[in-house]
């Protein structure tokens, strides 16, 4: 098997040296200029109010969002909430927390693998989780039907370590201070510092966070789809139209200031999502990305050097939202060899690593999923051997995606490059 691996690096190097096309891939899609809806409540509070109202009114049957586990260490996990009280000020839900215990794209796939829910479910997720889910839908691993997808302009998430050692809570003030200024706390995942797609695509509702100086006191919701508008519109009518409103807490005023259904949405929309702060963050992250990618050791030698300490646990694959295969080839019978195989390799090479396929696994995974890699950083976070997996995979991903002029998660109708036949393409490889 390793002999196949050795034939790959030259192609890899070629793929990673495409800076000119890289820029094209990171530019903002022009259609993201939807008008926003200003609300005189902080972003966190608005989210809680919105989600609570959606659950209470029965417009959604559940909400997938982050919540506190209630353990001593301040643990955080995704949960499927059905109880509206979780979103009260003292509730356990914390929808906008900059943390990613799992890529929610995988979770939405798990939720909708067997079909869409009968009643709508809302999900509050990061842009890369949303992009991962779009890819999974294209790969027939989930359904967008009856989901209300809510995302935000993202300031990155903290590595999992910080959720374990309790530092996460301590750093939050710093995080939000940075976000208000349109900056990133330098402790977020390296891949977040280098993220080119922190403005969500395909969200029904986008919460503006990056560069929103007043996000504690007011926030802007961008209603990108009719679905998003319809759900918020309903919430707006809640305080005046529905019985039982009296039981709502007094702090519901923020929601009350949403436009009423008769007024229509258009008249209340103002502002544009793509602000100066967003533009600035784009350029900053672009610089980060170049620096981060420059540190990757390329070629087979580089791969061996970097992945030499890999313990073969395949955790990177397990948490990767794109690696959806129930049985990976590298965990299958195909990779269970006879002792004679190892003896043959031994004769040929003088030494064989056991278990084998360390670099081959990474190359195989790259070949299978890099075109859909959303650069979420889960793989790096779970690696017990501290290998910067995500940096390497992002670098290859960006290059491969540029090669096919493809952007994972951009558009659910955009065909996966490996599934489309183009008579004339990749001429540079053919010659």
């Amino acid at each position, binding site marked *: 098997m390793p002999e196949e691996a050795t034939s790959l690096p030259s192609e890899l190097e070629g793929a990673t040296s495409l800076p000119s096309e890289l820029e094209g891939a990171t530019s903002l899609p022009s259609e993201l200029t939807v008008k926003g809806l200003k609300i005189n409540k902080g972003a966190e509070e608005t989210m809680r109010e919105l989600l609570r109202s959606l659950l209470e009114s029965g417009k959604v049957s559940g909400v997938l969002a982050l919540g506190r586990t209630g353990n001593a260490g301040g643990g955080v996990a995704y949960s499927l909430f059905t109880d509206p009280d979780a979103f009260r000020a003292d509730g356990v839900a914390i929808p906008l927390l900059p943390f990613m215990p799992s890529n929610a794209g995988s979770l939405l796939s*798990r939720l909708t693998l067997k079909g*869409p829910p009968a009643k709508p479910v809302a999900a509050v997720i990061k842009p890369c989780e949303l992009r991962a889910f779009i890819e999974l839908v294209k790969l027939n691993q989930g359904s967008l039907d009856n989901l209300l997808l809510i995302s935000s302009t993202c300031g990155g998430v903290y590595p999992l370590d910080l959720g374990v050692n309790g530092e996460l809570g301590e750093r939050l003030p710093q995080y939000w201070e940075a976000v208000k200024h349109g900056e990133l706390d330098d402790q977020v995942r390296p891949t977040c510092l280098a993220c080119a797609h922190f403005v969500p695509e395909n969200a029904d509702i986008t919460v503006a966070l990056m560069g929103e100086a007043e996000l504690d006191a007011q926030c802007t919701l961008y209603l990108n789809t009719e679905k998003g508008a319809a759900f918020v519109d309903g919430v707006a009518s809640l305080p005046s139209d529905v019985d039982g409103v009296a039981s709502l807490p007094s702090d519901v005023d923020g929601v009350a200031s949403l436009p009423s259904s008769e007024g229509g949405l258009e008249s209340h929309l103002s502002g544009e999502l793509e602000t100066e702060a967003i533009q600035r963050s784009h350029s900053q992250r672009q610089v980060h990305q170049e620096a981060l990618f420059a540190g990757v050791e390329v070629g087979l030698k580089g791969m061996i050097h970097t992945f030499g300490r890999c313990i073969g646990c395949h955790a990177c694959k397990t948490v990767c939202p794109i690696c959806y295969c129930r049985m990976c080839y590298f965990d299958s019978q195909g990779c269970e060899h006879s*002792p004679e195989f190892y003896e043959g390799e031994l004769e040929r090479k003088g030494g064989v690593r056991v278990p084998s396929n360390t670099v081959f696994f990474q190359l195989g995974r790259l070949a299978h999923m890099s075109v859909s890699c959303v650069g979420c950083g889960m793989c790096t976070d779970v690696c017990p051997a501290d290998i910067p997996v995500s940096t390497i995979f992002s670098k290859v991903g960006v290059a491969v995606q540029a090669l096919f002029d493809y952007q994972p998660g951009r558009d659910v109708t955009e065909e996966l490059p490996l599934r489309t036949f183009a008579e004339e393409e990749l001429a540079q490889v053919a010659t």
Partner: protein
Amino acid sequence: MNDKDTTRHQAKRNTVLDPPCGALLPAEDGIEAAFVGWLKEALNRNIFDALLIPVEVPAEDSFAYLLLQDAAILESASPLPPVMPVQGGKAISRLTMRGNGNKRIAVVVRPCEARAAVELVKLKQAHLDNLWLITMDCPGALLLSDYLEDPAAGAARFAKAYADRRHPSEWDREPMRPVCQICNHFSLRQAPVSDLHIGTLGSSDGAVFIIPASPKGERILEDMDMPVDAALDSWAEQVEEAEQTQTERRRQAHTELRETITGPERLMDVFSNCINCHNCQRACPMCYCRQCYFESAALKLPPENYLARAEHKGALRFSPDTLLFHIGRASHMILSCVSCGACEDACPMDIPIAQVFSLLADRAQETLGYVAGGSLEEPLPLVAYEMDELHQVEQPYVEIYHKQEVQDA
């Protein structure tokens, strides 16, 4: 019938390694160097055809099991590396799961890795006929994450912690993994499953014992022209003493741990940071299933199922079944758990999983009179049928239903 029960319980007690004598290996220039030199000589003399041994990786930041037959590669071998990145039992299983090979291969592993290999043989996932297992008195291993922060410093910390190989009372167990700190199977005296054992404990200055633990091991020493005439009293004494200390430590640690995990609430708390990556299962040498039930199609359910469960409690952790996975895993592999700590090394959320499993393993194995990796002959408790056992579990059933059953009959 009761006699049968007792016999089973005694089986493990009879397997204490107690050979009167071992061979002496001069080690003036350090134990590792002497051992590697000896392996090289054995390879050159065709005592065995190949070696499976931890070797430093090219970036010099970790170790990997390498199957080699070129004595030159042995230069970078490390018979007792500061970390255990891959459990040796797993490496042995990868190599021999499809049968015994044609080459005679010597395998250098830690005691817990040898014990895992023995369990894997019983589970039909490994074959040892053409392997020679060689183990060493083991001071433990560093946490992989600690070591990787600065491999050179880690190696130095490891070397310093047990600079005095001869006296375990001088070993500093503090830098080692928590589960290594409470290990009482660090030598092979209580579980002589290897063929040769390098005894550093109780050895005199400038030499270590090479202890034959099986007829295969005896033959190697014979072929190497090594007289087996060094008395092992000092080794046995030191091992026994350290075993007692370690067993007491283990008991204490388990008593404290038990407080923190008893009851569903506390157990849930311990595992509450789990992100469901199942990496504990992947690193575990005993979890050999190609497809874990918890990753199978059986648990992929329609959304209404999840929503109904969420409705029941107000919220459903997603993905669900986190605690169930750990309980399920424990019930499947706990009788074979060798407390090697691979699971804890692999956990990205720092859950003390190896410690919890070591407590469960001790209790479960004690209940069934079984020692994981204790001997190749002793059958796996779940495979062996015993007419009379576990009366403490079935008693309530007899009391409640027996009379009724007799009446009904």
